[in-house]
């Protein structure tokens, strides 16, 4: 079994994902795929790529489902990748030390040289975030783009995970969730960001921002708009007369 860092730093790098604006376009998933296909854990093998059951290794997947009934329900697009838990069972369960959590930033990684492909970690992860590469025989997973976020060969603004940099709606945020003053922490506080399945106690670092509700019946201010009232009609009953004396010049 593998232990967690005995002296973790306060830094907890992770993602904040805004479910209020995610349209389920899969941009994050595919951009992640292309970056990481040639990245730190390359390749992300695909099986039967042009065959009958196409599948493969993806570090980030978007799940779509509906909640509630009929028009009152909601369609939810739910992107999911490794949550870089504070208490990652996938690490502690690892018999070889391949799975590890970095002390300096909390990123959970797999050292492929030590991985024996036993898949205990994928059994231990309740979020289904681990991806076994059958071809190579090792477990792979989201690295939080560790080969981007500190990469001095990239411009500073590019040093964020690929999924964050590509997201067209801006539903993905990256930062230090260990720092209450960070932008991501403030966002989580403002928008009541939540943990995925907190009852399990893994303390995921990534947070989700819930969909905003209660706006369907309201106008642009968030409060109901005043109903329109019919313009008074005079005794002739001619509704057009209201505009008879309106003199406007062009």
């Amino acid at each position, binding site marked *: 079994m593998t232990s967690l860092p005995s002296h973790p730093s306060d830094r907890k790098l992770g993602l904040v994902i805004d479910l209020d604006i995610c349209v389920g376009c899969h941009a994050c998933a595919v951009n992640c795929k*292309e970056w990481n*296909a040639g990245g730190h854990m390359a390749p992300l093998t*695909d099986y039967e790529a042009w065959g009958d059951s196409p599948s493969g290794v993806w570090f980030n997947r978007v799940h779509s489902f509906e909640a509630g009934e009929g028009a009152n329900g909601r369609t939810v697009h739910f992107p999911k990748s490794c949550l870089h838990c504070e208490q990652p069972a996938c690490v502690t369960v690892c018999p070889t030390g391949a799975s590890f959590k970095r002390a300096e930033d909390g990123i959970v990684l797999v050292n492929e040289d030590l991985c024996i492909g036993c898949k205990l970690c994928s059994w231990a992860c309740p979020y289904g975030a681990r991806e076994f590469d059958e071809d190579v025989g090792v477990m792979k997973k989201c690295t939080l783009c560790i080969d981007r976020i500190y990469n001095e060969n990239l411009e500073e603004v590019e040093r964020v995970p690929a999924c964050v940099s590509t997201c067209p709606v*801006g539903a993905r945020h990256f930062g230090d969730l260990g720092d209450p003053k960070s932008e991501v922490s403030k966002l989580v506080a403002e928008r009541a960001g939540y943990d995925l399945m907190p009852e*399990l106690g893994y303390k995921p670092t990534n947070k989700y921002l819930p969909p905003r509700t209660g706006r*369907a019946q309201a106008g642009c201010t968030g409060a109901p708009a005043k109903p*329109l009232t019919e313009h008074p009609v005079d005794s002739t009953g001619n509704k057009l007369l209201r505009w008879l004396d309106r003199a406007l010049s062009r």
Partner: protein
Amino acid sequence: MSDRRYIAEPQAAPKVRADEQAIDLSPIVHDQVATTTCYMCACRCGIKVHLQDGRIRYIEGNRDHPVNKGVLCAKGSAGIMTQYSPARLRKPMKRVGERGKGEFQEIEWDEALQLATEWLGKIRATDPRKLAFFTGRDQSQALTGWWAAQFGTPNYAAHGGFCSVNMAAAGLYTIGGSFWEFGEPDWERTRYFLMFGVAEDHGSNPIKIGLGQLKNRPADNRAKFVSINPVRTGYSAIADEWIGITPGTDGLFVLALVHELLKADRIDLDFLVRYTNAPWLVVDAPGTAGHGLFARDDAGNPLCVEASGTIRNALEAGVTPRLIGDITLPDGRTARPVFELMAARYLDESYAPERVAEQCGIPAATIRRIAAELAEAAFEHAIEIPVAWTDWAGRRHDTIIGRPVSMHAMRGVSAHSNGFQTCRAIHLLQMLLGSIDCPGGFRYKPPFPKSAPPPAKPAAQVGPMHALHGLPLGFPTAPEDLLIDPNGAPHRIDKAFSWEAPMAVHGLMHMVIHNAWAGDPYPIDTLFFYMANMAWNSAMNAPDAMRMMSDKDESDRYKIPHIIYADAYFSEMVAFADLVFPDTTYLERWDCISLLDRPISDPDAAADAIRRPVIQPDRDVRPFQDVLLDLGARLKLPGMIDGHGKALYPGGLKDYIVWHERRPGIGMLSGWRGHDEDKQGTGEPNRRQLDRYVENGCFWRGEIPEKARFHRFANRDFFEWAIPRGFLDKPQQIVLQLYSEPLRKFQLAAEGHGTRQPPDHLRARVKQGFDPLPSWYPPFGAAADSEGYVLHAITQRPMHMYHSWGGQNAWLRQIQARNPLFIARKLGERLGLSDGDWVWIESPHGQVKAEIKQMEGVNQDTVWTWNAIGKRAGAWNLSATAPESAKGFLLNHVISELLPPQPDGHRYANIDPVTGQAAWYDLKVRLRKCAPEEAGETAPTFDVLETGLPKPGDDLAYGAEFRAHRLETGRGRA
């Protein structure tokens, strides 16, 4: 932590020290990075392509690019897999087997070009219209349309007739612009956004960026997003309110909103008087040829009447027109203002929310509430920005007033037989709210607005060896502009600009195969397609399209004698070609996203862009545009050869982009023109122009001065900016056309006036369709109710796919490789259908088999599926038993290009009667559960297509080489 679920108790096990693996945090990313423009869909985002040893390491959005501002969608991010697709064609091919079988012989380019030159040369020398050249999802229409004109055939169009011509035409005839490429919501300022239907790949990244912004506004500047769409997926999923409207009733819903706003007098009267034709006088002389036309003075100016009874030129500045009341014209006829006609029409109780609620599937209270919310946003949250500007009459204004309500619509509204009028209704609503080209409203993108409609007319064939006197597509404004002969027969093979589709401003690609096969209105010789999968998802009625292309006459000759096709991939269409020109991929060629074509501008700037080769082809392929120019030179087409008969553009499109001038000083690109490279829009060709584009990230963006950014239909500052750039001809107000006189002129002809009148069988359709005021009528497909075809059936584009291209992509097909038929859960309960059941989807035209999936967020009377997932077995070099062909299906199979026969046997085309837009969203169906032995696979299926291309391996480890390279060079992990 008692609830922690360890597989084993950690303390009990021997500990392995967490190996803080040595990680190279700064690995090399590329040895070269190149900017260019994406072509994974129609959006045309800027991209940065990272290359390592000539292979693509990574593609990302270009942060500086005006379209996508650095983001990139799933399609764009999957470009690597399309670049390396095993479906890529390798060499020119000549058909050796029967059409449709896919049996080809690879030939050399010289032979291919000689063959095409021979076929086309004969046509040009005899009857140029016998070449029908249609170019699908072409992003080089400024070239291809011009090429057709130089060849001399009027038979040219791209795929707009299939896609969204209703939207484009209605907008251009009404407000001199439209949505998407013509304009967009003022995302930063709008307070209320109505989205009608949507094709989620059109303007997709800009819309996503905009929606994200809009939804995250601070509490004191909130905006509401309302989605009107039968299906709650994609953008609708994040709408503040989703309205699951019944397909084809959007126009009725909009006119009910108009009714409510008029009833409460919550309209922007000032805007209507200043900027629309609301005050213009319409002649009321029933039964005469002038009835319903504008009253005009001798100079042709429209007239209005002031309160005093004085009749004035309605275009004059300072007139104070009356909006209500009859007036007797000097010639004794009666006339009344457009406004009165409009108000009387929509105040009618037939537009009351209660009356339309059931048809639209929207409660009356909801319609009333939306109307109130629109009025609230427009009038109680009006915006005034302190930017001084000068109006068309030279009057200075200190501020600009904005009505922060915006709208967007695309194919969901467009692809109905009442789509043109529905789109007009949306523009009417915008005009009433005063929310056109103002802060917070809809905003034009340059070169729009243009006059409503733009001045160009469609050009007719001149004769053998002659170019057209204009471009094949244009904007008719009266029956005289139609391309018909004296007995009414259409000039064009697709019958565009005939009485069947008078304002077919994008042509009717969907009718070409049928008409060419039927020899109606005349037989043709060569069908030349580019990037259009006409044997599959780009055809309504794909099985018949295939049959027609393979059909032979009594003497065993194909009814369509020659078919030439150009594409980069082995699509379903390739199999039907006699001659195949293999194209390059988008990363292997020069291209030009021109303002003469489909602009990529934004509301604050004009913009255009290029593509450039970032990798070299490893196959014997050529860019289609180069091939076209080469063919043009071989055919000695005007504009493509010099005085000595030599090719003018020996370097292909790259030369053409730089040196071709459409008019003096106006060429394909607007940026860095002139000897000093400092001219925008117009200026002498600059031989270094492409270098400047490349240095600038492969795009150019020229900002509009702040004072010229709003009310551009009436903004002199804008005219002064636009005219020298060639976007406008004259500094004249563009009056928005609430009442459309061109429509009325066609309607008059249908009522029996004039020398050019529709044939009797089309009179009623023309009369109904060409209402000069926005109108609604039930989609023609609705006629099928009586036989139990009561369910509306529509398709949606998955955001991660672009037509059939997406399905060949090894990554994108992992997201989706098959498509079920989605139905409302309650409908499923009623019909006894549950998830995983298979059904026959039956229409009057045919049947197709699909798997059922129930959902909540769909209109109760609507079934739908994802389009273009289904494939013909073997096509695109996928496995012959791939899910795309075994389980995926096309709804196209049950949509006919013709409506069911009338009692007299006549079959109308399945189109909008104004524009000829393919009405494929009109489809109505019934469902029949499959017998158990029928379940599990789709039908109809077709012979397996043998592409003859090398079969790809099973597994794919793309990217391993980059890691290996880092290790070799010591830039990988220790």
